């Protein structure tokens, strides 16, 4: 056994100090880890979900004027992972995370109310009645963000013509599925389920009003409202009822969900209107998803051709 040279022996004080330092370092690291994990749990969020992989829809007409916009499309990933669909949770990534539990086949849709041909029809059969076309629309959320989405669908007016509403029909009401088994968000009463939206008859018959069955050349993702949803591009996004199970023609104005829950914040018309601020944020500008800056919001979301529908109505009530 050799003996270490005198100058290589650590003095006792330094040795104790090093041990103390090491101990304190470990304690500090442990504290940092505990506090950091706690903070991350309270504040952080999982990485964004992946975009869904879905089959292509064959044989649709490509987008053509006037049903297209010369603006960059929002990425497929962003369109399919960031939206509101409270039936699957209130976070904007919840639909993409949770909508896989939705079963879209079979999907009976009830068509009733003031209509000559009330019927129950499966979504696939219904979609088969019409020629599917591509429409590139701006989508402006009431929360002041926006997208440009290449939808696939057919004009709502074609469906209305086919089922023949009676003379009494003044409105069309759309009801979304509210099944707590398939939709975890419906287990919480954040909204009075089911979600109901509606349009005035002339709005529904405007050529821009679309029933979408797909986007980006593919089948509509569950999180976007499969198998069948409404798209009304001059109105705030919440007007676009998703996963529709009932289309009812009515004489009275439908009691639409957000207008019932918060009438001071959301009107029945919900036309995109930069002049009328939401009580909690300005509607004058919007953030286009994928862009950093804000761009001005256009009246009727840039679809000025619908202005004729609202002649004689106080524009301040058009929110």
């Amino acid at each position, binding site marked *: 056994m050799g003996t270490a040279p005198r100058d290589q022996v650590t003095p006792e*004080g330094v040795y104790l*100090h090093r041990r103390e330092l090491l101990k304190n370092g470990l304690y*500090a690291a442990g*504290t940092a880890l505990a506090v950091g994990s706690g*903070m991350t749990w309270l504040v952080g969020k999982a990485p964004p979900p992946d975009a869904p992989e879905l089959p292509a829809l064959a044989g649709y007409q490509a987008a053509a004027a006037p049903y297209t916009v010369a603006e960059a499309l929002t990425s497929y990933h962003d369109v399919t992972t*960031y939206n509101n669909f409270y039936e699957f949770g209130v976070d*904007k990534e919840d639909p993409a995370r949770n909508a896989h539990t939705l079963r879209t086949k079979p999907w009976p849709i009830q068509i009733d109310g003031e209509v000559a041909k009330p019927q129950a029809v499966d979504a696939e059969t219904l979609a088969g009645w019409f020629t599917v076309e591509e429409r590139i629309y701006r989508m402006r959320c009431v929360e002041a963000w926006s997208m440009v989405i290449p939808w696939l669908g057919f004009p709502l007016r074609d469906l209305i013509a086919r089922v023949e509403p009676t003379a009494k029909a003044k409105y069309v009401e759309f009801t979304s599925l509210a099944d707590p088994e398939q939709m975890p968000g419906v287990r919480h009463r954040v909204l009075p389920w089911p979600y109901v939206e509606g349009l005035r008859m002339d709005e529904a018959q405007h050529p821009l009003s679309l029933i979408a069955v797909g986007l980006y050349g593919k089948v509509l993702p569950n999180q976007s409202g499969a198998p069948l949803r409404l798209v009304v591009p001059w109105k705030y996004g919440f007007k676009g009822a998703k996963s529709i199970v009932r289309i009812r023609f009515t004489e009275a104005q439908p009691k639409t969900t957000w207008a019932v829950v918060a009438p001071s914040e959301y009107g029945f018309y919900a036309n995109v209107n930069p002049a009328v601020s939401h009580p909690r944020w300005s509607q004058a500008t919007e953030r286009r998803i*994928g862009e950093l800056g804000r761009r001005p919001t256009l009246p009727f979301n840039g679809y000025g051709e619908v202005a004729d529908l609202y002649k004689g109505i106080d524009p301040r009530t058009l929110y």
Partner: protein
Amino acid sequence: MEGTAEPASTRRPLGRPPLPWLKPGVVAGAAFPAASLALRAASGTLGANPIAETLNQLGLAALVLLVASLACTPARLLFGWTWPLRIRRELGLLAVAYASIHVLVYVVLDQAANLAAIAEDVAERPFITAGAAAFVLLLPLAYTSTNASVRRLGFARWQRLHRLAYAAAALAALHFLWRVKVDVTQPLLYAAILAALLAVRIIVRRSRRQGNTRAGEG
């Protein structure tokens, strides 16, 4: 390396462990959300609306730290713990740091420093008014967070000033509550914790005062 070989007893005159690892540990841990945001911003994995996500996380981190700083005194009153008091100042300053970055991101990235739009927001949107008021209240507290300030103001006055932290936290919770659309569970939870912390202080102080009075009578 002065004093490194001192016996423990001279470095701990009160016989209480100084917990030298506590402050650096807490500060480093509290920086996790900021570090994670920076990494995810750099790698483009903050989701479709990175500015909104950043604002939400920074704001919530500020509220969490503010509530934690206000829990230090109740923790001593309830459990007799003194270690939280050693990190109270750091928790408060970290809250102000997160709130400052939150405000900076809102002003510079969200509103592109459009002062007219920001003024309109503060004046007309109640949730932004509450948030702005909370932030403004925090600034004098951060400025007077030093020992020198306590001496300069005198402890009683300093303490009275720093009770504003409760008002700031309440306004921050209100800012959160008015911001969410329908699911108010989280903001109400923070508001409830704040109310409970304040209640502990009031109840303990009142019962002590009564105890003192009774002792005086006896």
